[in-house]
């Protein structure tokens, strides 16, 4: 027999394998839609392969392949439940993060309609939560401070009397601010108002075990999984399942669970690096004249690897375009970069300058050289745009 081809020198799941680093150099939009974790891609491919033992089969079917799919789906739920520190029978794996967000809020509000119609959220929740609050009842969005932290006094006042449920995120995906969920949950417990916690950008960046909340939601795309929403309804919570809620296909469930287990394992090495590089970027960008670096200056109040900064007198679309030409993919919360031509509601709620905004999110492929190259590119791009607009010295 001829010898096998050259052996893989690194396991597919090694954080930042050389091939990944090379292929994704300059890609700083991980939360906007990152690539699948290599192990998730592998699981997905195997799962749909006709040669596989039946991952693709209907897990409710009574035949052998169906039973096999059922066991795999159970295993995926157990794995995800294990990372979150919840019971497997509390977990539903559904179509997308936004489906889970909407279902969580609408289902709680429906079960609590006798208690009241108010749905209280923070002003910086993701759009699916804010939309669901308006759909389910009378939406009340509580203010945050300039760092993105919820105004707890205002929240406490808002949940008193006539409130169906509340929803507060763990970690904001745009600016990285982490909410004080222990305090939020204590307020809700005191007021006897059930709480939805959107894990949002936390999984793979911060510990997510034993997070408080009566209903938890998460989006598998956050940790390198395929589109899949995790919905956790804790035992004893009154929650009415909205019609039409369906489970994700079994291969997708397996891929999402595989990616979460891998991301959770890699977090030990990745998170400290992202934290250090976030500080490097924050300090470096703050040195560019007339810059606002958003979020909490204290690293304890924000997640590693997420950053937003705005540059006065700069057109956000122009800045994103120039960085793209230079090989860097970043997102933006500036109005000119959105379809609705409205600025990011997160930046607006924080009162942070929205023009010339860039959002950076790091992934397992990110390297220090990549971060330093981005930092070196932003200053000159900002200066060039300002010079062209003739705003120097204003």
């Amino acid at each position, binding site marked *: 027999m001829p010898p096998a081809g050259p052996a893989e020198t690194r396991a597919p799941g090694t954080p930042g394998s050389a091939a990944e680093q090379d292929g994704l150099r300059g890609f700083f939009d991980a939360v906007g839609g990152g690539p699948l974790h290599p192990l998730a891609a592998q699981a997905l491919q195997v799962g749909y392969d006709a040669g596989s033992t039946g991952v693709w089969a209907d897990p409710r079917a009574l035949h052998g392949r169906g039973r096999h799919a059922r066991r795999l789906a159970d295993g995926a739920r157990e794995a995800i439940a294990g990372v979150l520190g919840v019971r497997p029978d509390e977990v539903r794996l559904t179509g997308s993060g936004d489906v889970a967000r909407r279902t969580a809020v609408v289902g709680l509000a429906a079960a609590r309609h006798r208690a009241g119609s108010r749905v209280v959220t923070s002003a910086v929740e993701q759009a699916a939560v804010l939309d669901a609050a308006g759909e389910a009842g009378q939406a009340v969005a509580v203010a945050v401070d300039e760092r993105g932290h919820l105004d707890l006094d205002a929240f406490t006042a808002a949940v008193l009397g006539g409130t169906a449920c509340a929803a507060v995120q763990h970690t904001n995906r745009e600016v990285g601010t982490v909410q004080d969920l222990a305090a939020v949950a204590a307020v809700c417990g005191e007021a006897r108002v059930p709480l939805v916690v959107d894990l949002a950008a936390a999984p793979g960046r911060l510990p997510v075990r034993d997070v408080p909340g009566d209903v938890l939601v998460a989006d598998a795309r956050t940790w390198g999984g395929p589109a899949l929403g995790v919905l956790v309804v804790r035992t004893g919570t009154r929650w009415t399942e909205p019609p039409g809620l369906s489970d994700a296909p079994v291969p997708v469930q397996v891929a999402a669970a595989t990616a979460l287990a891998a991301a959770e394992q890699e977090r030990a090495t990745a998170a400290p690096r992202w934290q250090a590089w976030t500080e490097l970027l924050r300090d470096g960008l703050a040195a560019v004249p007339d810059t606002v670096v958003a979020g909490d200056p204290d690293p304890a109040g924000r997640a590693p690897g997420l950053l937003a900064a705005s540059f006065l007198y700069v057109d956000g679309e122009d800045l994103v375009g120039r960085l793209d030409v230079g090989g860097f993919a970043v997102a933006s919360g500036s*109005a000119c970069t959105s379809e609705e*031509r409205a600025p990011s509601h997160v930046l607006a709620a924080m009162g942070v300058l929205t023009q010339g905004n860039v959002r950076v999110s790091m992934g397992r492929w990110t390297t220090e050289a990549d971060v330093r190259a981005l930092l070196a590119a932003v200053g000159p791009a900002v200066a060039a745009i300002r010079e062209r607009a003739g705003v120097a010295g204003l």
Partner: protein
Amino acid sequence: MIGQDGRVAIVIDCVGQLCPLPVIALGRHIERVAVGEVVELRADDPAAKVDVAAWCRMRSQELVSAEDGTFLIRRLV
């Protein structure tokens, strides 16, 4: 020019202009009024509400009022 008594010294019309143009116009014209005088900026871009307030903080100027796309800014420095 009227001003020390808080009445509007100049009006900058940026209706129809997108971010960051209204704020650039504000930065460009603020020095046309004396310290203590008020500039009226008209801007209907949705970003102006946040960005005019942010500019005032960054440039240590006073945002007197912001209503219906009309911003009154007093020059302090």
